[in-house]
């Protein structure tokens, strides 16, 4: 344990640490705080004003006269240090006594709640998480006004000491998943954890997989939905992303807006999204396979269209495809790194000028240009950012396999991906559930988004102690004609 005088000496090495004596009639007060962490108005109005008014105070009197709720008296050096580093003001009375009053005066500087930018919805609420943990927890608790919503605070990172909050509903989330989650966060040994996504990579079951095993979202409404379905949410101070687990593969292709749309429209949108994932992965590899090996496999009319469009292209199909995929990736990366306004310009320049120029210069065929552009577009329909990066990356092994053995290569590659997905777990839950292990009762909200009358129980694979959402019998009131 650190002694208090040593603490003052150590902290005074930083020039933003303020430490001074407040002279009184008897013993002086010593006041220490970081001016970079504290709110000057709180400090002036509530703390220092109490000191200057009365000159003959004991520490206890002072403690009771400070009109701030979050305060305590302690002589524990480590605790004092932690509190000061989180924006508290420490007041020590006299040289001998090592008791300090710690008053919270932390400055809450940060963004206000803004509209979601990654997962924008037309009809949903326009609130997104911000960097402050307190605001984020407020956004969640506002949506679940229930005493069973539990928030467990932990710290992660030996240097950053980031505040991490685990958030779940007691008796809806499975205890085992909660314990696993807490255990994994406590086991993290890394020093500087600046963002949720860093922690996310450390607590996932298989960090060598390109498939994410937790979903990161910026929408508090989505988190509230997930938590009330029995999932566990993890938030971190300083990160506008909340993650939740356990998740299955299907959930990555669900946009939360599906739930705000009427169920038929929502289902069709979801089906389109699933199809676009398949298209995005398989379109260009199939082009390579067909153009390299299976030219006879497709009908003459179709073949002549493709061949005539690439008659002047000097490259083999695989090189042509790789060039085009690379161009698209470059455009995306450049667009992501540049400020929004320039990014738009680059998009137009790249999309129109480069595209037509590449065809005219016989670097690529019209046909391929369409396929590549479409599959890039299709990969962006995946609502979860990390998964859409995975989908974009996934097609490259398929392209190489198609170049090697055509259709057979694509088959082998598919097998390898399926085997990989079968081996993955999320907090110990199989990744491909409810398809494998097959759970017919949990198929309702996967490929289509059914009407809410079908949501009568929570997914069995979350192993919720309270699996029933509502009583199905009372919900479906059947009426006869003219009744």
């Amino acid at each position: 344990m650190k002694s208090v005088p040593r603490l003052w000496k150590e902290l005074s090495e930083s020039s933003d640490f303020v430490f001074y004596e407040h002279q009184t009639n008897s013993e002086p007060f010593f006041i220490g705080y970081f001016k970079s962490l504290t709110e000057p108005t709180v400090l002036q109005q509530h703390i220092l004003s109490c000191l200057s008014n009365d000159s003959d105070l004991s520490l206890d009197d002072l403690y009771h006269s400070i009109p701030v709720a979050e305060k305590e008296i302690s002589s524990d050096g480590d605790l004092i240090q932690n509190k000061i580093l989180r924006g508290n003001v420490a007041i020590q009375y006299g040289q001998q006594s090592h008791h300090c009053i710690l008053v919270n005066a932390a400055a809450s500087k940060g963004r206000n709640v803004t509209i979601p930018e990654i997962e924008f919805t037309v009809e949903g609420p326009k609130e997104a998480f911000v960097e402050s943990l307190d605001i984020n927890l407020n956004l969640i608790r506002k949506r679940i006004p229930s005493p069973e919503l539990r928030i467990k605070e932990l710290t992660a990172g030996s240097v950053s000491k980031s505040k991490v909050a685990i958030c779940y509903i007691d008796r809806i989330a499975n205890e085992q998943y909660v314990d696993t989650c807490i255990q994994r966060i406590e086991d993290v040994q890394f020093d500087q954890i600046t963002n949720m996504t860093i922690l996310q990579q450390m607590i996932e079951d298989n960090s060598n997989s390109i498939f994410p095993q937790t979903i990161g979202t910026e929408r508090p409404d989505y988190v509230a939905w997930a938590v009330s379905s029995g999932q566990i949410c993890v938030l971190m101070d300083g990160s506008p992303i909340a993650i939740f687990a356990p998740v299955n593969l299907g959930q990555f292709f669900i946009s939360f807006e599906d739930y705000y749309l009427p169920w038929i429209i929502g289902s069709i949108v979801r089906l389109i999204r699933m199809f676009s994932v398949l298209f995005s992965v398989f379109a260009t590899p199939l082009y390579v396979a067909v153009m390299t090996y299976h030219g006879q496999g497709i009908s003459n009319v179709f073949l002549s269209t493709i061949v005539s469009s690439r008659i002047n292209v000097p490259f083999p199909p695989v090189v042509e495809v790789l060039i085009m995929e690379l161009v698209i990736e470059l455009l995306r990366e450049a667009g992501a790194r540049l400020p929004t306004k320039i990014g738009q310009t680059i998009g137009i320049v790249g999309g129109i000028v480069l595209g037509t120029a590449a065809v005219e210069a016989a670097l690529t065929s019209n046909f391929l240009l369409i396929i590549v552009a479409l599959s890039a577009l299709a990969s962006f329909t995946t609502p979860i950012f990390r998964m859409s990066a995975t989908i974009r990356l996934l097609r490259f092994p398929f392209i190489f396999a198609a170049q090697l053995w055509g259709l057979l290569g694509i088959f082998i590659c598919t097998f390898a991906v399926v085997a990989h997905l079968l081996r993955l777990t999320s907090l110990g839950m199989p990744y491909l559930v409810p398809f494998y292990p097959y759970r017919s009762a949990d198929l309702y909200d996967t490929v289509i988004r059914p009407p809410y009358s079908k949501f009568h129980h929570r997914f069995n694979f979350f192993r919720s102690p309270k699996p029933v959402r509502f009583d199905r019998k009372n919900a479906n009131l059947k009426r006869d004609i003219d009744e």
Partner: protein
Amino acid sequence: MKSTEHPRFTISPYLVFVLIHSMQFGPEYLTMANKPIQLAGQDAWISVILCGISFHIVIWMMYRILNRNETDLIHIHQQFFGKWAGGGLNFIFIVYFLTVASFQTRLFIEIIQVWLFPDLETWALALVLLLLVYYIVAGGFRVIVGICMFSLVRHLLILSLFFTAGSFHFNNLSPIMDHSLIDIIQAGKELTFPYLGVEMLLFCYTFIKTPRKSQKWAHLGNFVTTLSYLIVTFFSLLLFKPEQLSKEIWPQLTKYKFVQFPFIERFEFVGASSQILWAIPIICFCLWASSRMFKFMFTVKQLTVLPILLILVFTAVCLIPGRNLIEVVETMLSKIGFYIIFAYIPFVYIVDIVRMKVRRTI
């Protein structure tokens, strides 16, 4: 003695259906109808049903043996015949499964060489396939069953039959019961080979969550296989004359030539590549079972044995050069399989009953 695996590794009883069905239904179905039709002509479908029924009886026997001992055949061997004789029997099964794995790999590679890439090197494809198999088997039993389940998408290809429907000759089926019973049984014996695979049940019994409940699913698996083989046989009968069939090696792949789409001309490319869906589950299971037997016989880790076995299979695959030797291996495996199913399993069944009787009298 009761032994079951940790619940984390076990599968639900209904998955036994997937297991049995995908173990039986291998790429050899492509050629299965040729020989029986030579023997029994238009009555070959009766042989298919007879063979299916006899396999139902074998499945029933296996469940009787397993349920009574509540452990898998590896341990039953050692209980019944002692450490050395039991170990020897286990070793025979290891060799048998490794041969099956090599045969299936080689057969698949041959299909690819005939239908897709004539210049493809055997070792190259074998290497990639076995690496894939390693990755799957290393994932454990549940992953292999998952792969089996995934490979069930192959049944979508049954839709291609509709394209051939226009060319069916229903006259080929009559007259019914034109052949002697001996011919039909002979044909049925030839059909044992495609039905093989149920013996895998003896080795994964402990991986089934409530094994006693799984029997109906095993029977259902065998039933669906019988049904599929009936379709295959009828298809061969309806589409080809017996004289044509004697020249045709792959009647089932030829059917894909009938498939016509507005933009796909030669569907047999898809048909031939998709045979991987039939081959991979069997190869994986064979390697899993043989490495597991190794684990118990020599107390080594399965993960260390697996690469060695894969290298053995790889060598064996490379040593089978062409069609002739593949057929030799097929005949040999067909014989061994026949005796395992119809001689060895009944034998173990009788030994089990005798043991029970003896124990009761004591």
